[in-house]
């Protein structure tokens, strides 16, 4: 009896060790003839547009499935730098794309800017803090949400505030007062929107494209005059050097930049950059 117990224990232990070893060695490979899955790391601001484009692409391309990961471009870049297996990277600024290209992660020839976006002030529909323009961001007690310094929309915001601080009309005090009103720094635009819609924040500086069609009655948008925007938000995309699905990735990019993709992007408020023939 005792011996059989021991034998069971040995067998179970062996099984665990074997399972660990197998788990360590297997790689998830694809059987030919089955669906190819493209993994596309996409800047969070493109969540709505790329979800739609992905569905349209899948409908036209049987056998190709597109999996998106939407997050702040800096978070996606960090994941790629630490070994995430990705086919396409779409960044909301050149900085993170250039960093990956310099690090040898990108297939350099495929990297191109394809979109422009604009910054906007967004408030809840009832605009509790009575925001009408940039000057109001410095009013005492305004609850402002911006991005961290690394996420592109936070970076663009800081560039804009720096430009305004350099202008005597606003000055350094303005920038300090605005930063004093910040209640949270978010790592992706997608976590700003709920705070506005719940009324927890009075205002945020995000992209024009961030107000989806469904939310237009819940949020209010104020355009930002271009004089303080030195660098318009530009989105590049490209294929990863180690992507095993370059052909499918190229056809997805062609689709994004083609008439259907461009129409969707325009609809969401982006300005597609026409592809060079």
């Amino acid at each position, binding site marked *: 009896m005792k011996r059989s117990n021991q034998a069971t224990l040995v067998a179970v232990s062996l099984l665990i060790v074997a399972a660990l070893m197998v788990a360590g060695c297997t790689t998830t490979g694809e059987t030919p003839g089955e669906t190819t899955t493209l993994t596309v790391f996409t800047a969070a601001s493109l969540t709505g547009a790329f979800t739609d484009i992905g569905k349209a692409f899948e409908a036209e391309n049987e056998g190709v499935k597109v999996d998106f990961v939407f997050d702040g471009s800096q978070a996606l870049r960090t994941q790629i730098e630490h070994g995430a297996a990705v086919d396409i990277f779409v960044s909301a600024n050149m900085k993170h794309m250039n960093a990956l290209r310099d690090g040898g992660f990108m297939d350099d020839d495929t990297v191109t800017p394809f979109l422009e976006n604009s910054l906007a002030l967004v408030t809840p529909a009832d605009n509790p803090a009575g925001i009408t323009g940039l000057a109001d961001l410095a009013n005492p007690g305004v*609850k402002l*949400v911006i991005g961290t310094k*690394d996420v592109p929309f936070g970076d663009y915001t800081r560039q804009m505030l720096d430009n305004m601080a350099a202008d005597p009309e606003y000055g350094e005090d303005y920038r300090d007062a605005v930063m004093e009103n910040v*209640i949270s720094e978010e*790592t992706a635009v997608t976590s700003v929107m709920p705070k506005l819609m719940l009324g927890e924040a009075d205002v945020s500086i995000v992209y024009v494209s961030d107000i989806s069609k469904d939310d237009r009655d819940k949020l209010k948008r104020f355009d930002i005059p271009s004089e303080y925007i030195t660098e318009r938000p530009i989105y590049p995309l490209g294929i990863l050097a180690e992507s095993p699905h370059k052909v499918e990735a190229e056809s997805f990019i062609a689709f994004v930049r083609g008439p259907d993709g461009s129409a969707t992007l325009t609809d969401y408020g982006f300005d597609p950059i026409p592809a060079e023939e």
Partner: protein
Amino acid sequence: MDLTQFQQKSEVSRHSSRTRLGRAALTLLIAVLLALFLLFVTVPIASLFLRISPEAFLRSLAEPVVLDALSLSLITATMSTVIVVIFGTPLALINARHDYRGRDLVDTLTDLPIVLPPAVAGIALLMAFGRRGVVGQYLDLFGIHIAFTTVAVILAQVFVASPFYIRQAKASFEAVDRIYEDAARTLGASPWAVARRITIPLAWGGLISGAILSFARALGEFGATIMFAGNFQGRTQTMPLAIYTTMQGDLDASISLAIILVMISFAVIAAVKVVTRRNF
């Protein structure tokens, strides 16, 4: 020696040698499993120390983002531990010593945050104390804002860390022999005096280790904090939030903060060991 005897003897010796072999194999396997598990825990922690040079670590310690997070974390975790002890001690004492209707319900509710995912705690707190929340909308009338402030950080920590203290406190109160309390009572001590002079001093070790564990859980709080208190350096960005945020831009700062938390965690375990050993 006849044949059956011989057969029996050889059977026995074969049996015992097989048992010995089995035992050796078992020992070896257990050793391998143990070693694998220990490696699995220690390699990642050691990697934190291997991936950063001492100079870079020291340089990061001077970064405002690191200093702000460290001081905010220590302050908020201390505050939340004090709050948990103030509210939790009477609750634990009453539930350890008195049987009343609904005690099981109270026990269940106080334990709930242990099994509740922090993300659930985060959204629940926001729905309650947010500016338009169930409670928050009335506080807002008085100009009291909780969400996205340092107070929200403390509330989130109290929410998730309180069971660690209350459970431990209740168990240590239950472990105090009622004989001493009864003796004090027959000598005319009031219930308050009994608690203060007899029960609490006898349960002291357990209370301290419970408070330390609660402090450690508060220090590590992430999910509920980022959802309910937001992420702002110096105000709501505690160490775990700063680790998450700086990982996306300043890996050295992120690793340095992680190393500090590893050290604090070791100190916590050591402190609990010392406290409990001295008292039991």
